[in-house]
């Protein structure tokens, strides 16, 4: 079995997306096994360095899940995440991280099915992108 199994880190907010992931579990919504969840209070606490760290340590994708705009448990933390995500994305592009590897999704507590869908979609997309190789290693490979 040589299929590429990407490793994806998901930062899920405690109030919406983490609950949605639980709800997907309660409803036994089958998911691909590639996502590893880290629970945070709010998507707004996900420091861009966490995302960079995950890629640096070998993750092939990173998902941030927050409450829908307007529904944030902390009033507007999700909006701040959104604002940061644009710069983060362009920074990731510089590092050779394709857009499909990083996702920011609004998933409400009631949206278990959506969570499962996002997970499966993302795994498939990253599978098609192949493993993430940081630039140094890439050039090293090129030299070899």
């Amino acid at each position, binding site marked *: 079995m040589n299929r590429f199994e990407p*490793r994806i*880190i998901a930062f899920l907010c405690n*109030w*919406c997306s*983490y*609950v949605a*992931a*639980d709800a*997907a*579990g*309660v409803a*036994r*919504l*089958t*998911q691909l*096994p590639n996502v*590893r*969840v*880290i*629970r*945070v*209070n*709010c998507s*707004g*606490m*996900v*420091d*861009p*360095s*966490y995302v960079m*760290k*995950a890629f640096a*340590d*070998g*993750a092939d994708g990173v998902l941030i899940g927050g409450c829908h705009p*307007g*529904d944030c*448990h*902390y*009033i*507007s*933390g999700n909006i*701040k*995440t959104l604002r*940061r995500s644009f710069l983060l994305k362009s920074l990731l592009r510089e590092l050779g991280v394709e857009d499909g590897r990083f996702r920011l999704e609004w998933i*409400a*507590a*009631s*949206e278990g099915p959506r969570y*499962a869908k996002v997970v499966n979609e993302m795994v498939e997309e990253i599978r098609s992108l192949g493993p993430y190789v940081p630039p140094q290693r890439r050039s090293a490979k090129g030299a070899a």
Partner: protein
Amino acid sequence: MKKVGVYICHCGTNIGGKVDCARVAEELGAEMEHVAVSRHYKYMCSEPGQKMIRDDIAELGLDYVVEASCSPKMHEPTFRNAVSQAGMNQYNFEMVNIREHCSWVLEDEEAATHKAKDLVRGAISRVVHHQPLKGSTTSVNPKVLVLGAGIAGITAAIKIANAGYQVYLVEREEIIGGKMAQFDKTFPTLDCSGCILTPKTSEVGRHPNIEILTKSEIMEVTGFVGNFNVRVLQKPRYVSLETCTGCGDCEEVCPIDVSSPFELGMTTRHPISRPFPQAIPNKYSIMRAGMPPCQAACPAGVNVQGYMTLAGVGRFDQALTLIRERMPFASVCGRICVRPCEDACKRGQIDAPSAICYTKRFLGDRDRELGLEQNPPLKERREEKVAVIGSGPSGLSAAYFLTLEGYQVTIFEKLPVMGGMLAVGIPDYRLPRDVLDHEIRNVLNMGVQVKTGVTFGKDITFDSLDQDGFKAVYLATGLHVNRRLNVEGEDLDGVGGGVEMLRNYTLGEEVKIGKTAVVIGGGNVALDVARSAIRLGAETVVLACLESREEMPAWEREIEEGLEEGLILHNSWGPTRFLGENGKISGVEFKRCTSVFDESGRFNPAYDESECMELKCDTVLVAIGQSSDGDIIGGLGLELAPGGRIAADPDTLATSRPGVFCGGDGMLGPATFVQAVSHGRQAALSIHHYIEHGGLRPVEMKERPVDKDLKESERVRAKPVERGRMPMLAPEERKHSFDAIELGFTEEMAKAEGQRCLSCGICCQCGECVRKCGPQAIDLSEKEKIRDLDVGAIVVATGVDIFDAKQYPEYGFGKYPDVITNLQFERLCNASGPTSGRVVRPSNGEVPQSVVFIQCVGSRDPAKGKEYCSKVCCMVSAKQLSIFKHHNPDGQAYVFYIDNRTGGKGYEEFLRRAIEEENAQYIRGRVAKVFEEGGRLVVRGENSLAGGPVEVEADLVVLATGLTAQQDYMNVSRALNLATDKNGFFIELHPKLGPVETSLSGIYLAGAAQGPKDIPESVAQGGAAAGEVLTLFSIGQVEIEPTTAQLNERLCTGCKTCEGLCAYDAISFSEQTKLAVINAALCQGCGTCAAACPAAAIAVAHYTPDQIFAQIEGILA
């Protein structure tokens, strides 16, 4: 060396069936440093499991514990508690979710084991970075807010109040009781709903610890468990709960009937009423939807719906008095107003707007003809004197409203006549002199002094008025100077100003009009000038203007009437020069105007110089606008606005000189009559406030207007009456005289017109009830109020709505009157309902012989309705058919059902009785269609047990409509930050173990807001929620999580990035230290500041970067 204990739970086979727990425990125990012990067990949450951890901590001296099982949402508190009992800080514990996130959602056992191992490895790697933390405690405010006063909310409220705590019971409707108050009998005992509910509601009503807030909704909730602040919007009842005696006198005089929401449209009610005689609070209240569009559109804010309604019932005197509360000139306004009210009238969305202006004119004319002077009552006479400069509509109105307020007003007028433009600018055929004079006299008779022939700035000044003891001045000098075209030949003999011509004619001075007159201008004044020229004997009158016909600012009606009278129109022409012979005008040369306004909508005409036209004439009247007398205005020493008009505040009309106010055309530029009147009233209010209190008045809050779009409920109120047509003089008759063209409405026409009103505001605030009310309990000016309530806990008991049966058009609900919902059936059998408890056909009032119940309308139907079972409908229909049979023992009941779901104590037995004793025919199958045939309804469906189609004739069809979440559940969900499921029901903490708790501590659920429930379940939940609240109050303290933001002062650069990001204002900047300061009491621990800090000087305790980094490393290792 740090010691970590690792425990993997099998959760029976929930985890163990997929994840090789033993392998995870063994491999990680071997691989990872720090792991002192690694075990797996069937049920870690059980007492032996917890004891295993406690023993290990004691015996092996563990520093940290990692436990992998279900979601931390479920058992994190359990294990935190367990490690605490063994003396470990609870924050040295980390929980891993390998059930919801792993074993339950993965198919492959190897993959599941692999994933579980990654997750546990991440936790072990992370936990060694954890710090022991200690939360602080704060006391609980022992007050509770119960949201929703149905049976669940009432139960919770009474129990908590009986325990001695203060309860705020917040209810959206005007009474408490919820859906249960609408029911007739309850299953399975068939005891009367009212008889078991009303003792409860009356107990709430008189309970010293319960405050009921009716017509109230929550807007915003801040704070946390133990100390919430809830902002409540309290809509006006308009009737004082303290003073109302419930006598019902008000209801008798109310002129309006609207569909009753409590009776689900099966009867009408007056806007002032109470839903049923035993309601709590047992007081009246008024249904008001908001300000009707007509009133909202009227610059003067005249209560149009009010006087139209009163006219509709023939109370003409009261109608006129109501007009004169805001508009002193009913007859004048009825003739010349631009009628923004009629443009806004929602009746116009059905056929034609109400003829509001003609009705108002009738009311004013009737007053004059009968010699009445219906005015609002004058207040006590005051000593202060006020000067009004100018006797136009604005000045007269200011004088009128100031006099009503008691002031002694003197009007100073430059011209020899009063009325301003009304007198000298509007020709008699539109506004006859005697009509105007009568209404001016009405104002003067109230005690207003007048001095005509006095020019402000020459004969009198601010200083002279001051010396004469005037406390305030209102400048309403208008615009009386003709604007000039500034083209060649404008000073030729025969070229004159239109406004001057109108004024000279009115004042009896000589007016020379030749045979051929050209009028220049496209507004209403130009039309007045042109039509006057026709009447003054001109054989040919041509009107030329820059605008195309569609763009002309004049009213279409005026243009049409002018054309009927022989007026010739030349659109899109601009004058280039006036041609003369011997100093006399002989013609006008025009060039083509290609556009009047530029792209940004400003007046900036463009011409095609190559296309020219010449008109021969002997008279030219220029009517392109007016301006104020610059000489006088400039010399007053007041601040001026761009354009040379006096600058004044748009709301208070205050000028730069204290005590001097300015309004009307002189301040606005060319405006309308009704705007001038509006300014008169605003000035009067400002002057009253200025004299009474000094300074400027606060601007009044306006009532929220109703929706502009026509609603179904309004459409059904439309009586089939056509808009009245104004009787008019024929064009030939009117051409040669200044006689009034419009002849006026008759009494019958005015009455019919009043009845066309749709009552968009519901209550029309006509004031009939106010005048009738003995104890004076009614205040129509009551406004929305905001209450800020501090409470320690919140119970959400907002209940359910009923599924909209119109989603199934094939059942004919809304089409056939004898197809009703089961809630409507409750009202039919209810003794206080629309039929006093007689079960009859709504169409004809006859007793039905055959009644068909259709089950699952909107339930168990993911395609068209809701996926879920509404749970109560099977029993409701069994109950209702039993009641029907008790009313009519010879009748026959049929039930089309999918399955009978009658779980519950005594429920199945009740169903059996309905089938066996009441002989109800239960047909298993769906209904395809309900239709009418020969005056009877026919229900066509299938019988899935017998096989094949079946048709049943019915006199009455009852739809067992499902229960849905409240339509506005999102408002509550947003305000509380409370999660809902996809159907809009609030999510409980745990489906089995936390049915009334939510994920937000201190907020509890009760009743059907959490999901469809019957009465006993709702009551049980109300009690359970009360139990939770009382437990919280009894503990009296809550722990505040220590997971707040922490500042590393050594790293902080004082850049203030964090300060603006904090949604809780928990971060400030210290000017002394030049560093950020975090207020831990306000911090909620969201971590936005930490993520944004460019110096990484902020970290949220328990979520620090080193902890998260370690977890990432562990997972990906």
